């Protein structure tokens, strides 16, 4: 019977609380999706009705979603597996160029985009393995530099292969193998136009739906679908055996290896899966913009994606998506809005009056990367876990975050212990007052909370 007495203790997690939370999350997601679907249709009237609010245009939302896909992909590498990749843009470029090669007049190949996107994903994944296989044994910052170098190599190669000559060296006869002036990648002029995805559904829009920048609303629905797919895959990956293996490696590679995780294969999978999502984003971007240029796939893109992840909360899927929308919204809408509406004119006037060119030409929107740089440094110092960290697993990657959490946990323990002591003292006082001194030892064990109970209490206080 003693066990029956102990069983209904309130420390057992309430399954209904979990379900409620799940339902609540699903409701939020459903509302967000409805808003996302309705917004571009009502955007013009919203802007007309409330012009003082910087509403993002549909094109801005498309960039937001594209970067959300990129950030979710990099989050697998950085957030889950804890590997810093500073050349993530390379896979984005590879995805976009694969699309451009296979669906444009450049080589005269016109494969349907719905097939090309999977080839782009595969190409990015293969390059992820090609880069990862020799380099993943390197530690943190060396890996960062190698990936950075790879990102630059890919950009420069795509640019240079627009006009190149491959010849044997002079002492071997100097015969020209390829070229002269062969054009493989379009070079600086890029590849233009690229076939956009189409669905042959006739309607008021013509005899087919075209998902290009000529039709932003349809493209928004397409990229939204890609984002939802990416998100769901990421959630499933996170909760899978593989996801746990990644996090184990992130926490302690040696311990993970000792537990039987093949660290090389697991890290390689993180690299190639992460890369494949940027293939997704690349295939969309190429087709949506119907043109690509090597110079747009520069180091800034890699850094922006890193900023998004740091900002949103490294490892937190929700945070990364919010971070992407926030960063690109600030980048493309808010800064321009604040600049033109508030800051530019007075500063320009001041500059004209004082003769300082810097102020005369001031345009807030051009300071975006400066602002991101400051944000990056401040976030690292003040809030390394990001703005929307994963609850529970609060930035495990950051020792600071964990340390803070441990301290918070012990503070809770301490508080609970003090409380228990107070309760015990109170009980003792009551006992004394009622003058049954013999009862004291009997009362204490029931009132005093055991060590395990305190921890349960502490757990309960945290949102699970």
């Amino acid at each position: 019977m003693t066990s029956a007495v102990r069983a209904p203790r309130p420390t057992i997690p309430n399954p209904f609380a979990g379900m409620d939370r799940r339902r609540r999350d699903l409701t939020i997601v459903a509302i967000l999706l409805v808003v996302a679907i309705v917004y571009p249709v009502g955007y013009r009237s919203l802007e007309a009705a409330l012009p003082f609010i910087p509403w993002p245009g549909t094109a801005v939302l498309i960039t937001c979603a594209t970067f959300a896909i990129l950030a979710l992909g990099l989050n697998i590498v950085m957030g889950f597996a804890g590997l810093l990749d500073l050349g993530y843009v390379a896979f984005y470029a590879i995805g976009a160029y694969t699309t451009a090669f296979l669906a444009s007049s450049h080589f005269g190949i016109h494969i349907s985009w719905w097939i090309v996107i999977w080839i782009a994903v595969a190409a990015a994944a293969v390059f992820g393995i090609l880069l990862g296989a020799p380099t993943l044994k390197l530690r943190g910052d060396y890996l960062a530099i190698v990936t950075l170098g790879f990102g630059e190599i890919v950009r420069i190669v795509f640019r240079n292969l627009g006009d190149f000559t491959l010849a044997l060296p002079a002492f071997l006869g100097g015969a020209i193998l390829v070229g002269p002036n062969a054009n493989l990648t379009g070079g600086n002029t890029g590849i233009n136009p690229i076939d956009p995805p189409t669905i042959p559904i006739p309607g008021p829009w013509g005899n087919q739906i075209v998902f290009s920048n000529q039709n932003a609303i349809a493209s928004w629905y397409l990229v939204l679908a890609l984002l939802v797919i990416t998100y769901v895959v990421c959630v499933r990956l996170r909760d899978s055996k593989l996801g746990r293996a990644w996090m184990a490696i992130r926490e302690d590679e040696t311990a993970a290896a000792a537990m039987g995780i093949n660290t090389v294969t697991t890290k390689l999978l993180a690299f190639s899966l992460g890369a494949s999502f940027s293939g997704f984003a690349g295939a969309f971007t190429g087709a949506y913009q119907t043109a690509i240029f090597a110079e747009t796939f520069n180091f800034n893109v890699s850094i922006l994606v890193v900023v998004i992840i740091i900002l949103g909360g490294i490892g937190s899927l929700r945070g990364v998506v919010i971070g992407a929308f926030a960063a690109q919204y600030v980048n493309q809408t808010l800064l321009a809005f604040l600049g033109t509406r508030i800051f530019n004119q007075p500063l320009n006037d001041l500059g004209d009056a004082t003769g300082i060119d810097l102020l005369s030409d001031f345009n807030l929107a051009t300071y975006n990367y400066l602002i991101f740089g400051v944000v990056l440094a401040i976030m690292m110092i003040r809030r390394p876990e990001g703005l929307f960290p994963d609850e529970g697993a609060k930035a495990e990657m950051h020792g600071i975050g964990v340390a803070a959490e441990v301290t918070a946990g012990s503070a809770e323990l301490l508080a609970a212990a003090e409380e228990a002591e107070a309760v015990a003292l109170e009980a003792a006082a009551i006992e004394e007052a009622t003058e049954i001194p013999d009862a004291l030892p009997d009362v204490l064990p029931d009132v005093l909370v055991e060590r395990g109970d305190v921890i349960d209490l502490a757990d309960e206080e945290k949102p699970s």
Partner: protein
Amino acid sequence: MEELVRALTIGLTNGLIIALIAIGYTLVYGILELINFAHADVFMLGTAFTYFGTNFIVESLGIPASSIVALLVTFIGLPVVMLLTAGINAGIERVAYRPLRNAPRLAPLISAIGISFVLQNIGLVILGPSQLRVQDVLPTTRLVDLPSGAAWFGVDELVVVLVTLPLLLGLRWFVGSTRQGKAMRATAQDRDASGLMGIDVNRTISLTFLIAGALAGAAGLIVALYYRQTFFQYGFQFGLLSFTAAVLGGIGNLTGATLGALVLGLIAALSDRFLEAKWTTVIVFGILILVLVFRPTGLMAEKQSERA
């Protein structure tokens, strides 16, 4: 043949400049195990200061470019630029890295990337988006000229050597033979232990950043005068080159960084001359990746095998 001689001359001259920047990476890495991403942007600011300084002398003071200006800019300007960049570099350490001293390794690295972006965009604001021509102050008179005229060694190259070589040797002496240098080496070996031995670790780290910044500033001045250009992306371009040099030589190793820089300078010059300049970056990064994959300890590594 003369073309090869000229390429080697350019390669060694560039190598000496790269060495000045590479040593900054290697010093900081040796002591903090941090790739100081912002380092090369401090160098870029050095080129910008030189640009504004020479403009001030030639345009505002109205002194026409001459050998007097060259001497003035090189030997008065040098300590000024070095002081400025040293201060900036130490300030960056104080603001962005010191609060993260005990954080995981990734945190200061990301902070450094952030600072690098800030500096690069400050460069963009003050220099504009395109390359700027720096006043032509260094004479290009040829000191040694091969008969065919395809290879030479000019006064400007002599100035590069005269500035970089004493700095490199002076740094060697400082780190190897002075009390402060000993403190730096001790801190690099074991920060906690040297703290217990009475070394002021924070001051030593600040000193390291001061020295690294000063060398970057000197490199900035030399690049601005020798290439006669400044550009807000110079930090990124030269930074990767010099970081590769530091890795090539075995990061944390001063002699290695110098050697790696000379090797890399030669490779880049040969690639510029005999391949195409637009492929040089690819070649440099290719070397970086190959070195890291096959010999992560670099050419001259002594103790860092477990770090790579």
